[in-house]
């Protein structure tokens, strides 16, 4: 391999540095430092990724100054340290403990077939453990990373190993699997092992580094553009009312692929900085003039992997038959493997494979289109045609290809097939805006698509162009960095109006948009098989898994269905194991210990009303925060006024604010509480309420509250059995319904004279959305509140059940109890003891006062 910039070359006879080489490292280091700063300022990918980038920056400088023979080992060490930084020590040890033996098996001095069988057996055991068919102590977050690092790359690695004369150096193999950025990117390019080996410092180091920086800058820009599209142009299916909305929905469904493309550019760009001169992952895929062209440009690593593992072997096996037959069979197999590979990765990321009509249909149709076009191309003679500066026919081809792809993608990523079908009603509704949108999109598609720069020309580049490429990469990197630096400037928000600050925040912060909030909640509340796409599949899988758990719960002996707003209630006097922990209810169907309806003398009684996190989904009875709080309060009770303090758990899973208001109205007053804590999730409750209302109405349940009935009458709403149709009317009203629901809470509080405080909470690692709007509602209805939405300096990943279940874990409940205890103490409750009735102080807290 050449290394024209021989940084700390092995050949250097002395320890003296070559200053030209040091200048290169400094120049690249400065650019990398700027990109690291931007990554952190713009919250790209995740906060742990920002930390990993700092490690990468330090690591790059050391790596580039090391003698060549130490670099690969150092890169491996850096990758392992990166895993510890991101996941923590115990998960890192688990990851190494599972991954190292897999690699070790491939080095056993036995026939390859036996090694393959052993690796297969080891993976089979891991499948059993990942699928939770056997209990195991593997911590949260390890399986997705292990799957991402090993479960595709091991196939490529074993294929190359089977044809290799001898095993590769162990360091190279290990570094191939534990690639530095992979720990933060569950969706990662399918890096080929032979390519990984072949391209390692295969040319001038500065060229490799500069190309990497260029791609990282490009990746950051793509992610920012993605956010612009994601927050301001994507539509929920319920918002599609005319042809223009329909086109916007379909186009933006695919445009969010920019996030994956940006992530891939960041990953491969970062690897360049450690000498891996890997190929590009995508090449102007949005200018594909045909489906075979799309196949050549999009997700190039996966394409190359399937060509290597499936297409070429099948082609060679079928040689002698007609080219059309061979191409058809080989490509069909490629797409079958692609679909299976997608489901395989889904299993490792979320613990269950993905088999949906949407997924199967997407790959089948796309595969058919590509195969058909490939066979047609076999018949055409190959001639080099001069490519004009602009071509209308090419532009039309690009428009047709990308429109078809967007159409398929919208189907694939829709919440459900039923939901996707509802949007097509809008195709018949045209207005001036729709016409303008169609014309603009067509003109832009044909205009850009017909331009020469988008053509994949077969040009043999002459010698001496490498320097030009490096300079070009430098200029693009600096220009992109400058633009992003303006965006990330901490002083910028102060110069803008509130509306522009809010807009800017959507580009600078990593947060969900309304559509994905809706899809997460819909997956939780409705009978949906969520579709998947490569951009929101992790979120869709989260919601699908939570939905499965709640369905399991509601069909168990723990739940009794009823025609009430809650659609049921916890069964009384149950004592069993649920998800491996004790779940017990008392005489009154509360998930709590025994209490009497009549409050005993000298007892201070607190009622906690809320959804599943209050109920204690996933933890035992004595591990819920209200149980822990009761214990803490009694342990510190001086018995000056009260002999005992009770905390009663009125939590019920999958309940919106209006349903909790019903609990507050019907279940709580008989217990005569001295304080009611009403758990409120300002973000999710915006959608949860309307979703639970739709569910109840679909089941024919009376909504009970006159306010709700007037609300439905004002919309002219009559529930059908088709949820997407219902949601099209209701979902746009979710903010208004939340407002109304808190109004009902205020009304109930006044009617029963309940001493209530809203408990503002969010689940660990959940986005902090809707807080300001929620606090405004509390003020509007004069409802006191306790704000517990921040987790102070806690590691939120440890406070939740798992990566897909954000309910508080045992540790999470302990933290909530401790925090609530402190909040009550800070506001005088714990020392007062002489509670005579509710009054609101200036801080919005319910405080000791006089009835």
């Amino acid at each position, binding site marked *: 391999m050449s290394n024209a910039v021989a940084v700390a070359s092995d050949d250097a006879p002395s320890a003296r540095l070559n200053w030209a080489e040091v200048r290169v490292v400094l120049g690249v280091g400065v650019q990398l430092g700027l990109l690291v700063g931007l990554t952190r300022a713009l919250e790209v990918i995740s906060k742990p990724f920002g930390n990993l980038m700092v490690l990468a920056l330090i690591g790059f400088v050391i790596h580039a100054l090391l003698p060549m023979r130490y670099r690969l080992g150092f890169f491996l060490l850096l990758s392992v340290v990166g895993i510890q930084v991101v996941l923590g020590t115990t998960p890192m040890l688990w990851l190494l403990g599972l991954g190292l033996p897999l690699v070790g098996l491939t080095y056993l001095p036995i026939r390859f077939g036996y090694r393959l069988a052993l690796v297969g057996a080891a993976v089979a055991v891991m499948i059993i453990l990942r699928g939770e068919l056997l209990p195991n102590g593997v911590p949260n977050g390890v399986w997705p990373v292990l799957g991402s690092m090993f479960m595709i790359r091991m196939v490529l690695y074993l294929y190359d190993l089977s044809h290799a004369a001898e095993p590769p150096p162990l360091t190279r193999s290990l570094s191939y699997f534990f690639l530095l950025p992979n720990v933060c990117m569950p969706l990662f390019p399918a890096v080929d092992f032979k390519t990984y080996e072949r391209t390692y410092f295969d040319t001038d180091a500065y060229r490799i580094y500069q190309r990497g920086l260029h791609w990282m800058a490009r990746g950051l820009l793509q992610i920012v553009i993605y956010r612009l599209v994601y927050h301001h142009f994507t539509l929920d299916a319920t918002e599609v009312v005319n042809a223009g909305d329909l086109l916007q929905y379909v186009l933006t469904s695919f445009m969010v692929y920019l996030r994956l493309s940006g992530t891939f550019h960041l990953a491969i760009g970062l690897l360049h900085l450690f000498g891996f001169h890997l190929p590009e992952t995508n090449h102007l895929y949005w200018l594909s003039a045909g489906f075979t062209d799309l196949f050549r440009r999009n997700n190039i690593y996966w394409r190359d992997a399937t060509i290597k593992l499936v297409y070429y072997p099948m082609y*060679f096996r079928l040689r002698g038959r007609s080219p059309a037959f061979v191409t058809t069979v080989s490509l069909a197999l490629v797409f079958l493997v692609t679909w299976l590979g997608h489901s395989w990765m889904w299993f490792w990321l979320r613990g269950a494979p993905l088999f949906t009509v949407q997924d199967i249909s997407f790959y089948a149709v796309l595969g058919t289109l590509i195969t058909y076009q490939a066979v047609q191309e076999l018949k055409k003679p*190959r001639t080099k045609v001069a490519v004009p500066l602009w071509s209308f026919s090419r532009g039309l081809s690009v428009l047709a290809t990308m429109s078809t792809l967007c159409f398929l993608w919208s189907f694939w990523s829709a919440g459900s097939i039923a939901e996707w079908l509802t949007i097509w009603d809008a195709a018949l509704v045209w207005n001036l805006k729709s016409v303008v949108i169609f014309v603009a999109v067509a003109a832009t598609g044909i205009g850009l698509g017909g331009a020469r720069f988008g053509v994949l020309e*077969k*040009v*043999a580049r002459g010698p001496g162009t490498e320097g030009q490429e490096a300079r070009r990469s430098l200029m693009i990197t600096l220009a992109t960095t400058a633009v992003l630096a303006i965006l990330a400037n901490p002083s910028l928000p102060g110069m803008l109006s509130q509306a522009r600050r809010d807009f800017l925040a959507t580009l600078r912060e990593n947060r969900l948009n309304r559509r994905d909030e809706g899809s997460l909640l819909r997956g939780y509340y409705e009978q949906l098989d969520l579709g998947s796409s490569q951009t929101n599949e992790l979120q869709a899988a989260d919601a699908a898994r939570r939905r499965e758990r709640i369905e399991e719960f509601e069909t168990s002996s723990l739940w009794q269905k009823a025609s009430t707003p809650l659609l049921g209630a916890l069964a009384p006097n149950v004592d069993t194991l649920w998800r491996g922990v004790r779940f017990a209810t008392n005489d009154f169907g509360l998930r709590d210990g025994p209490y009497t309806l009549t409050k005993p003398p000298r007892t201070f009684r607190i009622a906690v009303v809320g959804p599943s996190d209050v109920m204690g989904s996933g933890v035992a009875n004595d591990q819920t925060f209200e149980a822990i709080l009761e214990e803490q309060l009694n342990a510190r009770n001086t018995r000056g006024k009260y002999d005992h303090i009770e905390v009663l758990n009125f939590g019920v899973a999958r309940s919106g604010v209006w349903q909790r208001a019903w609990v507050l109205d019907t279940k709580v007053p008989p217990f005569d509480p001295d304080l009611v804590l009403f758990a409120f999730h300002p973000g999710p409750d915006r959608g949860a309420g309307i979703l639970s209302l739709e569910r109840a109405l679909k089941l024919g349940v009376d909504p009970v509250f006159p306010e709700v009935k007037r609300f439905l009458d004002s919309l002219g709403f009559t529930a059908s059995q088709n949820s997407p149709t219902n949601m099209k009317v209701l979902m746009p009203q979710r903010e208004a319904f939340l407002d109304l629901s808190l109004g009902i809470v205020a009304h109930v509080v006044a009617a029963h004279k309940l001493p209530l405080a809203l408990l503002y909470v969010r689940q660990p690692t959940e986005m902090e959305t809707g807080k300001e709007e929620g606090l405004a509602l509390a003020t509007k209805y004069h409802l006191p509140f306790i704000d517990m939405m921040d987790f102070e300096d806690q590691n939120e990943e440890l406070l939740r059940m798992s990566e897909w279940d954000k309910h508080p874990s045992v540790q999470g409940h302990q933290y909530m109890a401790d925090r609530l205890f402190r909040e009550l103490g800070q506001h005088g409750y714990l020392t007062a003891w002489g509670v005579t009735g509710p009054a609101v102080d200036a801080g919005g807290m319910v405080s000791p006062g006089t009835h």
Partner: protein
Amino acid sequence: MNADQIIQSVRQYLLQTHLPGEDPANLTPTTELLSSGILDSLATLELVSFLEKQFAITLEAHEVDASNLGTLSAIATMVQSKLGARV
């Protein structure tokens, strides 16, 4: 057959079949053929057929990659290796 002869033969084939009109001087022994897009997967298989017929060698599926077909030099090395192995 020496490496230069192999390179000339393959260069001529590529210029005629996949790069008509291209300046031959641009197609050097180290020009990237696969990663540059000159050869896509179908064109690569056509190249394989050409090499097998022209030099009476046999390639396996796993040998169709950049290390063997990535440049004219790599092709020449691979062909010489197969010819030498056959002898």
